[in-house]
């Protein structure tokens, strides 16, 4: 069994700031991390590896420094790392990115065996589009299961996978045939800490590095800025909320505390009490 996990190196959004004058994102000096959603995908892949003895390949597209994220993925226990990097990829939107990644995945399939499952995170924290995973599935003609919260069952003999998918208003249980692309939701598992053996292997492991030509891309107009129809019209920092959190202080019983809390809420939002009363009246009619 071969599993590929697509990860992205992103700026740590907790430490990013927008320049007050130019309104551009100040990336300089901001540490990079593996997109947190991708870690849930990677952990899920590593669990399948343990169960089925699968090989896990991590793939990323980015600047040469993205190799750091791949090495980190190896310390968690992935077996192979592939970096797709080329200056022609600079400025890619989700369309161009999914194109380039799908080409790399074709080469991965040819060189290391076709993956039964491709994992991605639900979305990245720097783009928030959730489009790249489905884009890859479409281009590779893989079935796709998005917003997956749990993998219920993987049956390699039957070639099927059953998952739970979070949808509006409930949880869907879906089953489909392999090969499949799965995008994992957050908080679905907890990333393990790699063993010392994994850390040693990762520190030595070579990162397979491919450029556009290596993965068979001939039409460079499909790559990077030229291959990206998305136009960013405006970047702005949201204005900070002026309202501050209030700690409601009250002595005594839980009831007294609850009473104080309710009073504080009503004092701040006077219409709430009226609305609640209306609703309650309606309810009892």
């Amino acid at each position, binding site marked *: 069994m071969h599993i590929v996990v697509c990860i992205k190196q992103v700026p740590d959004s907790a430490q990013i700031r927008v320049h007050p004058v130019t309104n551009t994102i100040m990336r300089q000096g901001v540490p990079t991390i593996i997109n947190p959603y991708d870690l849930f995908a990677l952990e899920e892949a590593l669990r399948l590896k343990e169960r089925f003895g699968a090989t896990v390949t991590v793939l990323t597209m980015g600047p040469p420094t993205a190799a750091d994220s791949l090495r980190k993925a190896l310390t968690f226990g992935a077996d192979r790392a592939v970096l797709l990097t080329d200056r022609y990829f600079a400025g890619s939107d989700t369309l161009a990115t999914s194109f380039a990644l799908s080409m790399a995945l074709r080469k991965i399939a040819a060189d290391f065996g076709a993956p039964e499952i491709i994992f991605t995170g639900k979305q990245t924290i720097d783009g928030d589009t959730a489009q790249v995973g489905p884009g890859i599935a479409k281009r590779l003609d893989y079935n796709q299961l998005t917003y997956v919260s749990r993998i219920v069952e993987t049956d390699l003999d039957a070639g099927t996978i059953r998952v739970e998918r979070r949808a509006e208003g409930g949880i869907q249980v879906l089953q489909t045939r392999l090969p499949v692309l799965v995008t994992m939701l957050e908080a679905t598992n907890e990333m393990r*800490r790699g*063993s*010392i053996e*994994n850390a*040693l292997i990762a520190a030595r492991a070579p990162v397979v590095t491919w450029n556009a030509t290596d993965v068979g891309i001939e039409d460079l107009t499909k790559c990077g800025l030229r291959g990206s129809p998305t136009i960013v019209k405006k970047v702005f920092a949201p204005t900070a909320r002026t309202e501050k959190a209030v700690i409601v202080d009250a002595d005594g019983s839980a009831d007294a505390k609850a009473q104080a809390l309710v009073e504080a809420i009503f004092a701040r939002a006077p219409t709430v009490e009226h609305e609640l009363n209306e609703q309650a009246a309606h309810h009892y009619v």
Partner: protein
Amino acid sequence: MIEEKFDAIVVGAGPSGNAAAYTMAREGLNVLQIERGEYSGSKNVQGAILYADALEKIIPDFREDAPLERHVIEQRMWMMDDKSHTGAHYRSEDFNEEKPNRYTILRAQFDKWFSSKVREAGALVLFETTVTELVKDLSGQVIGVRTDRQGSPIMANVVILAEGVNGLVGQRSGLRDEVSPDSVALAVKEMHFLPRETIEARFNLTGNEGVVIEAMGTITRGMTGTGFLYTNEESISVGIGCIVSDFAESDVTPNELLEAFKNHPSIKPLLAGSECKEYAAHLIPEGGYRAIPRLTGPGWIVVGDAGQFVNAVHREGSNLAMTTGRVAAETVVALTRKREPMTAAALKDYEKRLEQTFVMKDLKKYQGIPALLHARKGAFFGAYPRLVSQAMQTWFRVDGTDKKSKEQAIYRNFRETRTLWGMLGDAFNLVRAWR
């Protein structure tokens, strides 16, 4: 089970650890370096000044690609009271030499660069991995390390402890005592962003020239300590630190001290209009020669802050760290080449080599200073700076008083604060400790 045995394991990726790992790897040794931080420099805090000489002896052409901020052309030494400073400034065009002697650096960037050199030299570096204890054989010889990651211990012929000021691995392994609160300082600092043109105009600089301000006086409220302000390319590092036991006795927090220092009338205009980009705090070993723990034993060597290698009088540390790291590495390389076992006796050679360097010579020279300043902190960090400032004020203020009377007033002021014998005693002791 990890079959592999390394020639050496280096615990920590600060200046001393990087110097040691680089030196050994470049000489062909199989080196493993283990760092608890996410990357080299992620846990490290310093003012920070880089002293070129110590690094040149390890990487001669470091200037080609190391991330350096400004080379220092001017040193300002300030004695401060609450409203004033009395300064001695030295600025020289000689410092604009082809290969400058001192640079301001940002440690997060510099350490990353140094670490990349370590890996290029061939050492294996593990990050986000904490060495929890040393593994010993029945005879007590250190033969490897255990980490916080699952798995078997990793074996090596020798372990170089470049683990920093607290020396936790050494403590846990029974090689040393806990660091005494009166031999470490707690320093806090902030980085303030300012456009480079503003910095250059404000400090009278051109291009990559830089200024260093070292300050002492009432800014530490009678505690043993100093303040500093360094110019970086597009930021200013400002900080202050005092001996931990002094903080414990006082009711002043480090943060209050830094806020007051930043708002001192002599400092405030230098920071005006700046934006605080980051803040950090760290312990600095300042016990000097007398606080140095045991440095070698069977299969282990201590370098850098873990060995208390800081010259507090001259504000030097990273150069001592790099030098001790290099010398330890050279000792290990020589023994490895001779195929000699890393016994306690063999590793003593590290200490002998250190005696020949400026590190031990300087620390020995100033061995009495930390204790003296600490014992007389009320005078050195309170009374004297105040007296000097008052004397300056009396002398420079033109108010119709004749100069003779002014001289007498200054003398009286000194006498009222301190007895003649007390002052002479302090002066005598300081001179004696300095020699």
